[in-house]
């Protein structure tokens, strides 16, 4: 039944070839180690490619008032102070170096008049902060990292005669299992998508850089790869996921035509002057400025419009509130019957910028609407609505080394890791997150491998366990169709675990997820093993089910609304709840969620904020102690 098994041995296996995975691989190679880079699709196609707006880094090229402290403050505010402060601090401090490093590897960002890297405005960022290339920054990032890997391979070829002596890219290969000896990682197991043949990697360190979970939802900006593989691998390996209830619905996805529903419309449209209006033509965001942000956002159109020219003397337009606020506002407008014809709202840049300027600043948006929706955004408004975009929750890691809790030798970076963004991620903080923590994960894994006296061994028992699971879709007798189950899962999460949640719906979701999981044990793949998408989906399905269960159970437990978690039955943010994170663990048959005390900021970071602002987020008791 099962095929001959290929066997490889590497110091570090990096699962995922997006920004975080490639940055981790570069770091591990530079530490002198051998690295296997596993990509589920072709090299250079990872989801990072879809990032549009930019990478946030306080370089201060456009406004020299910017600096790491300002960036740190914005990140904590955006995450409603549930962020792991140490991650937010490292991120704010190290992002500029990570961006500059990309330039030395060949990246070509847009420039300021002085020839420095240009920076653009984005939601929640106090100053223009996003390094960008038009609206295709993710492509620039992934291509630069891809070319950096090639450059290192070229050097190895020159020096050792073998380009793949230290780094080998395994394209179109999916990992289905982390292997362990005791509590320590001993390898990874998976299959070539092309042939279906099985592959074993012996390795003491595995870096998870698998990205997000969006494909568990119906309306999403994520590609098929976002099936939560790393989240599920970590859970099953005995690590924990933190704060999985926080899912970011990007406020502006395309809503029409149906086949493109969910595709991202970059926040740069608003950063560059685009405004949101309802069917009555009203700029409704002025009606949705929350109390905590009242002193930072303009309450009238005149001031909001002046801000684009003079940011030091005006408050920001409310279209640039953090994403969770804007997504909820759009949702409310549509529910109140003031939506656009296809169930969204209007986003207009045509009346705000000259046509040529729009095409120069937002070329792929112009292209995307023109070709997919017959809409010319230089002449008419777009129709947009919320789309599942990003999961803030993820593997709980040590901030400095990116080591996953509970499993020695397991590391995680990028979207698959949790904590950095708290309850809501600011736009632009993802690309810089990938680089900062990708590098740290590579370094963390390298240090760990070097510290080991003996390499953990892969046992035959571990291999046969992995083999059995891989072969299940062909050996099952049941007739469940993977595509049907996936569709049912997506409808369920969209309807019951989506942007607005209630206790009864979440309870219902957990019951229904259980039933889909039960049926998924009888899922069957038709056809052979060679490049068989039905087989691939049958295996990905379990990951999406685990992730969805973790999200639903964490969401049920959190009885407040905060960031990417909105409860209709508990609509207010509650300082008592800021004191808790939720940890998801796998007990062998289901996901269990338990609260864990959240970290308090140390005194010196707490002092970066005004006391009046802190009072909105922390309890009096916490503030009386004055920080950690």
């Amino acid at each position, binding site marked *: 039944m099962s095929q001959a098994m290929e066997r490889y041995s590497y110091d570090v296996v990096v699962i995922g070839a997006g920004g975080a995975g490639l940055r981790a691989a570069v770091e591990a190679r530079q530490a002198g180690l051998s690295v296997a880079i596993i990509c589920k*699709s*072709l*090299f*250079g*196609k990872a*989801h990072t*490619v*879809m990032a549009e707006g930019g990478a946030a880094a306080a370089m201060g090229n456009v406004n020299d008032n910017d600096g790491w402290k300002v960036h740190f403050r914005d990140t904590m505010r955006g995450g409603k102070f549930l962020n792991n402060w140490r991650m937010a601090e490292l991120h704010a401090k190290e992002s*500029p*170096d990570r961006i*500059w490093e990309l*330039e*030395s590897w*060949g990246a*070509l960002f*847009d*420039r300021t008049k002085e*020839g420095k*890297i*240009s920076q653009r405005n984005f939601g929640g960022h106090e100053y223009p902060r996003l390094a960008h*290339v*038009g609206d*295709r920054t*993710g*492509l*620039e990032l992934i*291509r630069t990292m891809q*070319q*950096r890997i090639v*450059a290192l*391979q*070229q050097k190895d070829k020159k020096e050792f005669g073998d380009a793949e002596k230290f780094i080998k890219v395994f394209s179109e290969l999916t990992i289905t299992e982390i292997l362990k000896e005791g509590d320590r990682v001993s390898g990874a197991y998976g299959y070539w998508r*092309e042939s279906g043949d099985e592959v074993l990697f012996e390795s003491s360190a595995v870096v998870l850089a698998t990205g997000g979970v969006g494909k568990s939802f119906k309306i999403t900006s994520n*590609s*098929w*790869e976002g099936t939560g593989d790393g989240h599920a691998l970590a859970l099953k390996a005995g690590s924990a996921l933190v704060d999985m209830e926080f899912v970011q619905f990007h406020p502006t996805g395309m809503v*029409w*035509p*149906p*086949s*493109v529903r969910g*595709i*991202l419309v970059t926040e740069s449209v608003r950063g560059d002057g685009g405004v949101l209006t309802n069917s009555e033509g009203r700029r409704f965001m002025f009606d949705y400025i929350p109390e905590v942000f009242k002193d930072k956002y303009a309450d009238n159109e005149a001031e909001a419009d002046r801000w684009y020219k003079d940011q030091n003397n005006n408050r920001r337009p409310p279209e640039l509130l953090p994403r969770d606020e804007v997504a909820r506002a759009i949702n409310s407008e549509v529910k109140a019957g003031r939506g656009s014809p296809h169930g969204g709202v209007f986003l207009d840049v045509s009346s705000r910028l000259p046509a040529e300027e729009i095409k120069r600043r937002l070329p*792929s948006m112009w*292209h*995307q609407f023109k*070709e*997919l929706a017959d809409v010319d955004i230089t002449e008419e408004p777009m129709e947009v609505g919320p789309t599942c975009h990003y999961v803030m929750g993820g593997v709980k890691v040590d901030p400095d080394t990116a080591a996953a809790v509970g499993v020695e030798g397991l590391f995680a970076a990028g979207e698959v890791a949790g904590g950095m963004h708290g309850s809501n991620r600011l736009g632009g903080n993802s690309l810089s997150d990938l680089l900062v923590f990708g590098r740290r994960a590579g370094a963390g894994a390298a240090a760990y491998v070097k510290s080991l006296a003996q390499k953990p061994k892969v046992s035959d028992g571990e291999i046969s366990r992995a083999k059995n699971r891989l072969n299940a879709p062909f050996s099952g007798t049941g007739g469940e*169709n993977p*595509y049907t189950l996936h*569709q049912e899962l997506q409808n369920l999460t969209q309807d019951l675990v989506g942007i607005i949640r209630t206790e009864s719906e979440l309870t219902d979701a957990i019951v229904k997820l259980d039933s889909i999981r039960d049926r998924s044990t009888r899922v069957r793949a*038709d*056809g*052979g093993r*060679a*490049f*068989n*998408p*039905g*087989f691939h989906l049958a295996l990905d399905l379990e990951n999406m089910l685990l992730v969805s269960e973790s999200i639903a159970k964490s969401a049920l437990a959190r009885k407040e609304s905060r960031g990417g978690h909105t409860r209709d039955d508990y609509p207010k943010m509650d300082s008592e709840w800021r004191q808790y994170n939720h940890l998801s663990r796998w007990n062998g048959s289901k996901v269990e969620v338990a609260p864990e005390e959240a970290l308090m900021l140390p005194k010196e970071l707490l002092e970066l904020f005004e006391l009046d602002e802190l009072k909105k987020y922390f309890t009096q008791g916490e503030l009386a102690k004055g920080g950690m």
Partner: protein
Amino acid sequence: MSKKFNFRIWRGDSKSGDFKDVQVEVNEGEVVLDVIHRVQATQMSDLAVRWNCKAGKCGSCSMEINGKPRLACMTRMNSFEEGETVTVTPLRAFPVIRDLVTDVSYNYKKAMEVPAFEPPADLQPGEYRMAQVDVERSQEFRKCIECFLCQNTCHVIRDHEENKESFSGPRFFIRMAELDMHPLDTIKNRKQMAQEEHGLGMCNITKCCTEVCPEHIKITDNAIIPMKERVVDVKYDPLRWLGSKIRKKEGI
């Protein structure tokens, strides 16, 4: 609202294959990739197709639609007449793996042969200064999403497997042009490398690559022709030829 279309889909592997006809419902606004997904979910669950973003940004779903190299995610169904037969085949210039999926490793091999960006040794990260106007030329080429449609359509290799050894193709000509025009790249003989090691001379400027580029990169006009002109300048101008022999100044 839905319309019926006949799809002829090539199914098979490296050894054999044939067309399979299916009738499919098509809804408003759909693209060819939507239809292929519907066929997968309802009629051929093991139909092999590559795709990722479904938004024209990753360049994965390259195939030939009615004989034309296209991205399936950017080919609207309303560009066909109702009742029309839409024929879908794998890229012709690359070996078939299964159904619509081909082995594009040729491109990754060629990528490995282009020397990477080499910045000035004494320039520290953070100190790079470049004018927007100077980076724009290279930025055009960096829009490339590596869909390899240009490679697939280029007749130097489309029906001439034997040329692949010495010809890198349009995707890598724009990569070389990009580095050549990069304001801070220190490798000075990139055009010559393109000519001598990557087969630039084999291109006879039929512009097929430019026509199929989904990113509308002017591959021929902005990358290939300028490189060819400079190479020819130096190679055939006797004075410059002599100059290059006497002084090892700036290469080409």
